[in-house]
């Protein structure tokens, strides 16, 4: 595994008990097991705790601006179509400041794997409300409880056209790893969400105990329901966290369509041309 790490940069900046390390470990294993030439795999990240993964992995790695990992990765992928692109970022980066980019990258079905570590808050800045923060949860900017209802990221990804969508909690390491592997193998936009403990910021304010207790809590709330409608794949930490593989479909990518439309097999369109009649 060391060959994929910038070991000279260790120790890392993540807090004790943070769930990012587990996801990072699963990701490194998935890359190693994939058999891809590491020189042909690149990582792109945004800003925040999860975004720092790009600084520790020994691949071509790009730590971009807040929320902009996906459009940067889109440019990189289209310029270098043979490169496997993995985007890693947090819930705030991907779905608040980067929300617009997320829906469009999924809609275009850009061939990349997006791993979102969802810790229900902005950890790097000390624990503020995020678009994932559960209704009523306490953060430094919602001390009386968050008045907003959170996104369901997997449902959002699926409704925008992602070709692969899965969710796990941080303790389900083997499932995370296999989902990342499957998403990497999938031609198209793959999305893997991991519900991960942030004991220093989110857990502490919501009296969720230490990191291990948080891990067990999320795992305990989780119910595996693969292949259900993502609208029903809820994340409600008071009731249940639905996990599993929700979407695994084949759909042409941006480049498939681009090449089809820009290297037309048909003669130029004109009214009444036999090749352009209905059904041909």
């Amino acid at each position: 595994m060391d060959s994929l790490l910038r070991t000279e940069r260790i120790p890392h900046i993540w807090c004790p008990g943070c769930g990012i390390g587990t996801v990072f470990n699963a990701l490194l294993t998935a890359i190693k097991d994939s058999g891809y030439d590491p020189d042909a795999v690149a990582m792109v990240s945004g800003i925040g705790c999860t975004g720092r993964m790009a600084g520790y992995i020994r691949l071509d790695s790009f730590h971009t601006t807040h929320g902009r990992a996906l459009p940067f990765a889109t440019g990189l992928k289209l310029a270098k179509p043979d490169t496997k692109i993995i985007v890693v970022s947090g819930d705030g980066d991907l779905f608040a400041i980067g929300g617009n980019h997320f829906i469009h990258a999924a809609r275009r079905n850009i061939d990349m794997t997006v791993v979102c570590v969802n810790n229900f808050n902005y950890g790097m800045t000390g624990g503020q409300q995020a678009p994932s923060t559960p209704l009523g949860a306490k953060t430094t900017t919602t001390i009386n409880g968050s008045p907003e209802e959170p996104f369901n990221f997997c449902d959002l990804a699926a409704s925008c056209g992602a070709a692969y969508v899965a969710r796990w909690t941080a303790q389900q390491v083997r499932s995370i790893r296999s989902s990342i592997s499957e998403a990497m193998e999938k031609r198209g936009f793959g999305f893997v969400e991991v519900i991960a403990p942030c004991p220093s910021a989110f857990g502490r304010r919501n009296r969720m105990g230490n990191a291990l207790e948080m891990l067990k809590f999320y795992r305990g709330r989780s119910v595996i329901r693969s292949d259900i409608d993502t609208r029903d794949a809820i994340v409600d930490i008071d009731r249940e966290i639905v996990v599993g593989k929700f979407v695994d479909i084949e759909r042409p990518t941006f480049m498939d369509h681009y090449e089809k439309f820009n290297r037309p097999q048909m003669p130029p369109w004109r009214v009444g041309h036999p090749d352009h009649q209905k059904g041909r």
Partner: protein
Amino acid sequence: MNGDEACCEGALAAGCRFFAGYPITPATEIAESMSRRLPQLGGIYIQMEDEIASMAAILGASWGGVKSMTSTSGPGFSLMMENIGLGICTETPCVVCNVQRAGPSTGLPTLIAQGDMMQARWGSHGHYEIIALSPSSPQEMFDMTIRAFNLSETYRLPVLMMADEVVGHMNERVVIPHEDEIEIISRRKPSVSREEYLPYKADDDWIAPMANCGDGYRIHVTGLTHDERGYPAMNAEAQERMVTRLVNKIRKNRDKIIATKNLYMDDVEVVVVSYGISARSAMKAVRDARSEGIRAGLIKLETVWPFPEELFRSVAGSAKALIMAEINGGQMVLELERSVRGACPVKLVSNFGGAIIHPRTILDAISKAAKGKL
């Protein structure tokens, strides 16, 4: 062809094969031309969800080893500032063409201004140096877009083309030279092994050779302050070292970057300074002044940033007055005043946008200056 189309052709001639953009008047024709022409050349055109994404995408494409550009106007230029800063910090070659219209805000979408000149210089946060060019005709849109790519590949930064609505939309003859006559510069590649390579260690000219994604060097690129390895370094010393180099790679190479076009400057009394479309009004005014026997001359700025302050310092010693003609409330004139340091009077001829400056207005200012009545 019009200026926007000439910009597209210049980019293609320079080797641009990736364009990401978002429709905006009066720059839309650049995107439209790119969408037609790039697929013919095996390139990629993509319309992004906004200008933030467009700027991010061209940076990504550039690291993928493909020359890339975007185009926009004021409102989109504002959105691009964030990732122009990322391009500066990560030293990413690319080109941004701003076909300026009148602001602030939505302003006059279809009408001219040159009001984004200071935004071009200082629009992204933090301290840095920038390169910006200003074309005055469709021919210069073609020629300068090639130069913009060459400068961006040489000095490793986003280079800004500060065009304007009139230059973008005017139709004029554009001569496209044979490809052998076009100088194309591409980024310098590392000459050392993977183990020895330091992505942000500069050569003697302050510029660091660039490995692309997939070249096997396993680079790390970040918008955080970084050391020569490209690794984040959160301290004042690293900041001093990094920004010094970002600044010096432009400042120490100013002579190679700065370009001006001079007209009637041999025996000059009154010097008009201008750029973009305003330089053409100024040219007409200077010629008219000459026919009236006034010893007027023109310095047309082809690079607006870095500003040629040494040139103006030397000109100011022998001139009666300097006149800046520009379509804004007075932006580049501030640099002119700063450069001449009171050695001679500096007069601004301008409007706030919506129309070009009439040559007559500039001629009036020249006549007054010649009589010492500024």
